[in-house]
């Protein structure tokens, strides 16, 4: 199994537990483009249709008490993001788009770092 390219901060995990209580199992899709582009979008699981043909599963977030939360990205976008590791964080704010957290006054945010050499090697097909 290939290593995960995603992680979650404890603050974001807390918000996910709250959203999970309201909406059930969740998913993320990393957006691109303008306005709220580059923001991670959080939906009820299955809300956005994804497939292995068009999207890349970056990994699953493990949040205690919840089903694993898959994090997806469009495959063409992944071609430009493949060398980075993403951490889902949360900041005060108000994203647009249909992400579930926006009414809470908080907004998920993607923080990125370069893959370590070991991670990069493990991800090489």
């Amino acid at each position: 199994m290939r290593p995960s390219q995603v992680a979650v901060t404890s603050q974001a995990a807390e918000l996910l537990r709250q959203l999970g209580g309201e909406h059930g199992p969740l998913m993320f899709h990393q957006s691109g483009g303008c306005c709220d582009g580059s923001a991670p979008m959080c939906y009820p699981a299955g809300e956005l249709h994804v497939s292995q043909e068009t999207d890349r599963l970056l990994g699953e977030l493990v949040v205690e008490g919840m089903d694993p939360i898959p994090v997806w990205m469009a495959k063409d976008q992944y071609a430009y993001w493949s060398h980075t590791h993403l951490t889902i964080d949360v900041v005060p704010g108000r994203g647009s788009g249909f992400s579930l957290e926006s009414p809470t006054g908080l907004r998920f945010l993607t923080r990125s770092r370069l893959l370590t050499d070991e991670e990069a090697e493990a991800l090489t097909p």
Partner: protein
Amino acid sequence: MTVYQPPGRPGSVVSYHPRYEHWIGGTWTPPVRGRYFENPTPVTGLPFTEIARGTAEDIEAALDAAHAAAPAWGRTAPAERARLLLRIADRMEQHLEELAVAESWENGKPVRETLAADLPLAVDHLRYFAGALRAQEGGLSQIDEDTVAYHFHEPLGVVGQIIPWNFPLLMAIWKLAPALAAGNAVVLKPAEQTPASIMLLMELIADLVPPGVINVVNGFGVEAGKPLASSSRIRKISFTGETTTGRLIMQYASANLIPVTLELGGKSPNVFFADVADRRDDFYDKALEGFAMFALNQGEVCTCPSRALIQSSIYDGFLGDGLERVRAMRQGNPLDTETMVGAQASNDQLEKILSYIDIGRAEGAKVLAGGERVDLGGELSGGFYVAPTVFEGDNSMRIFQEEIFGPVVAVTRFEDFEDGVGLANDTLYGLGAGVWSRDGSTAYRAGRAIQSGRVWTNCYHHYPAHAAFGGYKNSGIGRENHKVLLEHYQQTKNLLVNYSPKAQGFF
């Protein structure tokens, strides 16, 4: 030089109400669930009004009003519909200064821009579509001696429009003008970051618009935007935003079998060929301004020229002169007419930009200017300000590939024509591009070879109503601006008429 007072303060040209309801069926309508949310100004970070928090029930009420209004509005004579647009334009022009200050307070953009661009462009856009509608013609095609195909334009009916936060009033008018001209009734959802200025506009034009023809429901995307986009009661949805929401909206539209217009952003290349530096003249000065255009509207423009590609032979000199232009940018109070760079529209936008500056550094890009948050002191300390930032790096880096939507440009060099066009096209997006050359042939060939919906040639960031705007590749589907938009909001009705008294001869 003028420094405007914030809306509502003594001496200000404009005031916001403490609270705004929805605008449905020509009346101020409280949200069914009775909830409101605070709306802060990015200038100081403090709330200045509260806004109805719409839900599916409010969207249904707005759709009821729109459906009640649509049939009569769709039958209204084109001259009458054009007159409405002209009257809205006149009203906006009469209150241009108020709207400009209100928009600056709402979004954080410099009032210099709202006075000179956002509002005048919105006014002109309305007038353009009033004219385009008056001049629109159907078609008559002779099929044979006795058979004629008549083509009529008919409105779609009720359409949904979701507005972005970077140009709240201008983007609303970009969408409203063609939809109304074409005879549709609209349910519009503003961005939750900038919900207020559009309500000020609704109040200003309330006496002009037939009830139900324009309905505005505010709220969060998931609570109000989704019920609108997924409704089976709209005949089209238009959205400006980003790719994941674009996909979701298309998915909802596919379930309802309705068309979409999607404007999803870009990573626009700004290509400077060596001959721009042949002389130090007006044209060179203009090209340097073109380089600096990444900071217009704090970079919160879908077509922000956020990748500067400079030909190797002039790279160092041109970049040096460009940096000088960047250092001369004046950042400050958005309500000061001398200010060139204002505040980012929201805290999460600010955080996102800073996170990109982090990954840019981590990838080894060099910060040549800016690269940090700015504290302007005093009342503005709580505002969301980022210094205009210039990165030098490689086109494969994330900062070269994702729309940062901040005053951040990523610069790299190219060797020859093929290399330059190759780099320009090495992106998921294709909304805007800039090409700079003194040689008409080079500029033309580059403009045709770059896969994007608009290629500014020896200019940048002009948005005339009579020029089509929209994206190739992941930048979206459909166009905005230009008279062709009328047809994007219309059905084509064909009457196929046979004038012969004779049977066809089959039965």
